[in-house]
C-alpha cells in the first residue's frame, strides 16, 4: 500500500484530560468537556481563538443525544468555527486523531482540536453496543460486548495454565501502571501474588473472561490539539510529530473465528500493522517502538493482540508478558497509563491512547513516564466487530526520507 500523501508535517501540540471516573455527576457534558479543552489549550499555550477547526466525537446513541456536537459548543468553544462530528464506534477517538491530522496536513486548517468524550453513566452502554448488531438477525442474539473466544483460542494453543497466567499477568501489570496514573478511573493495587487467587475467584463473565479482566465504563473527556509544522514550532511545548496512520475495516464478523489452521482469519490488527510498518520501513516493530499505547478492552485481548500488532508468529508475545518486559521499565512498555482497563470513556478511549503516547514522547507523563528516552510511539484503536486504527508518533522530524 502506497504511503499517504501529506502536504506538510503535523504535530501534536497540546493535550488535556479530565480525571476519569465512574460518575461525574458534579458536571454536565459541556462542563466536563470544557475541563479538558481548557487543559489542552493551556498545555499548548494558546487560546480558543487560535483554533481553526474542531473535530468532535463519541459513541453514537450511548447518551441518546442527537447532535451532541451542537449542544457541546458551550464546552468546546466551537462557536463560529468549522466543526465536524465523527463517530466510528470504539475507534472514534483514533479516527478523531486521524481526521485532525488529515485536516492539518491538507493545508485547509493550521490548528485543529480533537475532542473525544463519553459520559457513560448518563446512557445505556449495553443498549448502545447491542444496537451495533444487525437488527435483522444478530441483534436478537447479542447482549453486550463480551466473548470468551480469545481465551479459548489461547488456551488451545498454549495450554490452559500458561494462557490464563499470561492474561492475568497482563491484567495485573496494567493495574500497576494504572496506580501510577492519577487520571485512572480504576486502580486496585493488585499484586502478582494475587494471580492464583484472581484466576480462581474473580467472577466469570463469559468462559474464562473474568470480571477483573474486563474494562470499565467511565466518564471523561480527552482533547488533543494538532498543528502545522510552522505553528507547532512556535508553541509552548516541544511538538510530537504524527508520522503516519492507518485505518482498516472489515465486514461484521460476529460469526467468524479462527479455530482451524487450514482456514485462517485475516485479522485487521495484523493487516494494519503489516501495511503501516512496511510502508515506513520498519522491520521489527518491537525493537523500533519505545512505547505502545494499545486499545486493550480486556486482559485476554491485550495479551493476544500484542502478537498481531508486533507481527509475532509464535509465543514471543507471551514471553514479553511472562518476563514482565511490557512493564513501564521493561523492553517494550505497554500502556504505562494503565490502558483501557484503567479507564474507558469509550468515545475518548482511543484518543487517550494517542494523547498518552504523545505525553510519553514529550517526557510529560508525570508519575507514569517511562524512565528512558521515548523517541518512537505507537497508539492503537479498536472497535466494532473488528476495526483497527494505528498511529505512529515521533520525537524527531527525521524520517521523511525513509
Amino acid at each position, binding site marked *: 500500500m502506497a504511503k499517504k500523501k501529506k502536504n506538510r508535517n503535523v504535530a501534536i501540540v497540546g493535550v488535556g484530560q479530565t480525571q476519569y471516573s465512574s460518575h461525574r455527576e458534579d458536571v454536565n457534558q459541556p462542563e466536563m468537556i470544557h475541563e479538558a479543552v481548557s487543559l489542552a489549550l493551556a498545555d499548548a499555550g494558546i487560546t480558543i481563538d487560535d483554533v481553526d477547526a474542531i473535530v468532535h466525537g463519541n459513541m453514537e446513541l450511548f447518551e441518546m443525544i442527537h447532535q451532541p456536537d451542537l449542544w457541546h459548543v458551550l464546552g468546546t468553544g466551537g462557536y463560529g468555527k468549522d466543526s465536524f462530528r465523527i463517530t466510528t464506534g470504539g475507534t472514534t477517538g483514533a479516527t478523531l486523531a486521524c481526521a485532525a491530522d488529515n485536516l492539518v496536513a491538507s493545508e485547509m486548517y493550521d490548528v485543529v482540536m480533537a475532542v473525544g468524550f463519553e459520559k457513560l453513566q448518563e446512557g445505556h452502554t449495553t443498549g448502545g453496543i447491542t444496537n451495533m448488531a444487525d*437488527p435483522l438477525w444478530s441483534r436478537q442474539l447479542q447482549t453486550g460486548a463480551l466473548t470468551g473466544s480469545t481465551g479459548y483460542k489461547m488456551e488451545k494453543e498454549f495450554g490452559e495454565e500458561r494462557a490464563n497466567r499470561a492474561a492475568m499477568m497482563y491484567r495485573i501489570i496494567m493495574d500497576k501502571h494504572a496506580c501510577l496514573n492519577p487520571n485512572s478511573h480504576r486502580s*486496585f493495587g493488585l499484586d502478582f501474588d494475587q494471580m492464583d487467587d484472581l484466576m480462581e475467584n474473580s467472577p466469570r*463473565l463469559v468462559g474464562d473472561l473474568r470480571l477483573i479482566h474486563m474494562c470499565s465504563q467511565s466518564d471523561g473527556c480527552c482533547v488533543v490539539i494538532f498543528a502545522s509544522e510552522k505553528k507547532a514550532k512556535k508553541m509552548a511545548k516541544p511538538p510530537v510529530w504524527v508520522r503516519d496512520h492507518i485505518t482498516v475495516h472489515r465486514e461484521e464478523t460476529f460469526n467468524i473465528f479462527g479455530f482451524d489452521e487450514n*482456514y485462517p482469519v485475516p485479522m485487521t490488527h495484523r493487516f494494519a500493522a503489516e501495511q503501516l510498518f512496511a510502508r515506513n520501513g520498519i522491520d521489527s516493530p518491537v525493537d523500533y517502538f519505545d512505547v505502545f499505547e494499545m486499545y486493550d478492552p480486556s486482559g485476554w485481548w491485550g495479551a493476544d493482540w500484542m502478537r498481531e500488532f508486533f507481527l509475532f508468529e509464535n509465543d514471543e508475545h507471551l514471553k514479553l508478558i511472562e518476563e514482565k518486559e511490557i512493564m513501564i521499565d521493561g523492553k517494550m512498555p505497554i500502556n504505562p497509563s494503565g490502558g483501557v482497563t484503567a479507564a474507558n470513556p469509550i468515545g475518548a478511549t482511543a484518543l487517550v491512547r494517542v494523547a498518552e503516547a504523545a505525553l510519553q514522547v514529550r517526557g510529560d507523563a508525570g508519575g507514569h513516564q517511562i524512565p528512558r528516552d521515548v523517541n518512537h510511539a505507537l497508539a492503537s484503536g479498536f472497535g466494532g466487530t473488528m476495526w483497527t486504527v494505528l498511529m505512529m508518533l515521533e520525537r524527531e522530524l527525521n524520517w521523511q526520507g525513509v
Partner: protein
Amino acid sequence: MSDQFGIKVEEIFNTMEERFRPEGAEGVDASYGYDIQGVGKWKLTVKDGQMKIEEADDLGDCVAVTITDADTFVGVNIGQVDAMKAFNSGKFKVDGDLGALGQTAKMFTKFVSGKKEMTVGDFIQDMFATLEERFQPKNAEGLDVTITYDIQGDGGGCWTATIKDGTCVLKEERIEKPTVRLEVGAADWVDVMLGKVDAMTLLSAGKAAIEGDSSLALKLGEIFSKYIAPGEMAEPEQELVRLKKVISVNHRFATGSVMGKFLQGLKNKKIIANKCPECGRLQLPPREVCAVCRVRVPGVVEVGPKGHITINDIAYYASPDPLTGETRETPYGSVNILLDGCKGNETFWHLLRRDQIFEVEESWNEKKGTRVRPVWAENRVGSIKDILYFEIDK
C-alpha cells in the same frame, strides 16, 4: 473488631434481626454463609419470611458464602468501602451463586453504627491518625510550613504537621517556633472538628489561642478535608439534581431481497446461505455482496440444519437486553455452529439448550465439536428466533 472503622463485625450480625425486612425476603428459602477471616463464620438462614443468624463452622449447604476480612466487611456494610471495588480487587469474594447473594441486599435495612460512645481521647486519636490522608496537596501548593497542635487536657497531646513540596508529615512532637501553633482544649477541639462549634467563637471566647501566622490557621479547612467520624457518612456538599428519562422507540427495518430470503427460509424450517462466485466462501446469513471480492452474490444455498459446535461461549453474566428490558437466565451458551455444507469459519451463531451447555465439546483444527440440531418454534414468523435453540443431536 475492624481496626479501621472502630466497629465490631459481631455488631453487624447482631443487628440483622432488627434490620430484617420480611417483604424483601418473600419466596426466599436459602442459607448464606459469611466467612470473616480471623473473626469467625456465620450462617444466615431465610425461610417463610423468617430469618435466623448463627455462628456456624460448616457453611457447606449455603447457596453463597461471602469470604472477606473484618475491615472490608465492616467497610462495605457502613458504606465506607466501595463494594464493587473490593469485589473486583479480590478483597471481597463470593463462593457460590452471586445472584442469590444479591437478594440479601433487599432483606435488610442499612446498618447504622450502634452509636458507640467515643471518648474525647478516641476522637483526638482518630483525627490525627487521619490527618495525613485528609491532606489536600492541591490546596497547599507552594507551602513550606509547620503547624503545631497543642491539644490540652484529658485525651490531648502535641502534634506537629510539616507541609512541604506538596506532602504532609505528622509527628507527635513539639518543635521550636512552628509557623503557627494552635492551643486548644481537647473537648473544644473535638467540637470544632465535628462542626458543633465554630473556631472563631472559641477564639473570641479566649478558649483557644493562635501563635504565629494566623492567616495560615484560617486556611486549615482547605489544606485538610473535613474530618468524618468513624461510621459517619460524608455528607455531599451540595445536593445533586438528576433527571431520569426513559426513551422507548419503535423501529421498522427493510430486509432487502437477500436477508428476506434467509428470514423466509427460517419460517419454512430451512437455513439459507449464499456462495461468492469469486472466492467460493459461503456467507451465513447470506449477504448482497461478498465484502472481500466486492462482487454480487447471486442465488442461495441451503445448509444444515444439523452441524457441529465450533465454540460455546458460556455467559455467566447477562446484561439486560435493551430490546426487551429482560435479562436472560445465566449461565447460557452462545454457540457458533458449523452447519453441514459449510467449512472453515462459515459458522452460524445461535443459542444452546440451557441444560446442555456443560456437555458439549468445541472444535479445534481437525477435531470436530459436538453434533447439534435446531429446535424450531411452533409459530414461525420469519425471525432468527424461529429457531428456539440448538440441542445435542443424540
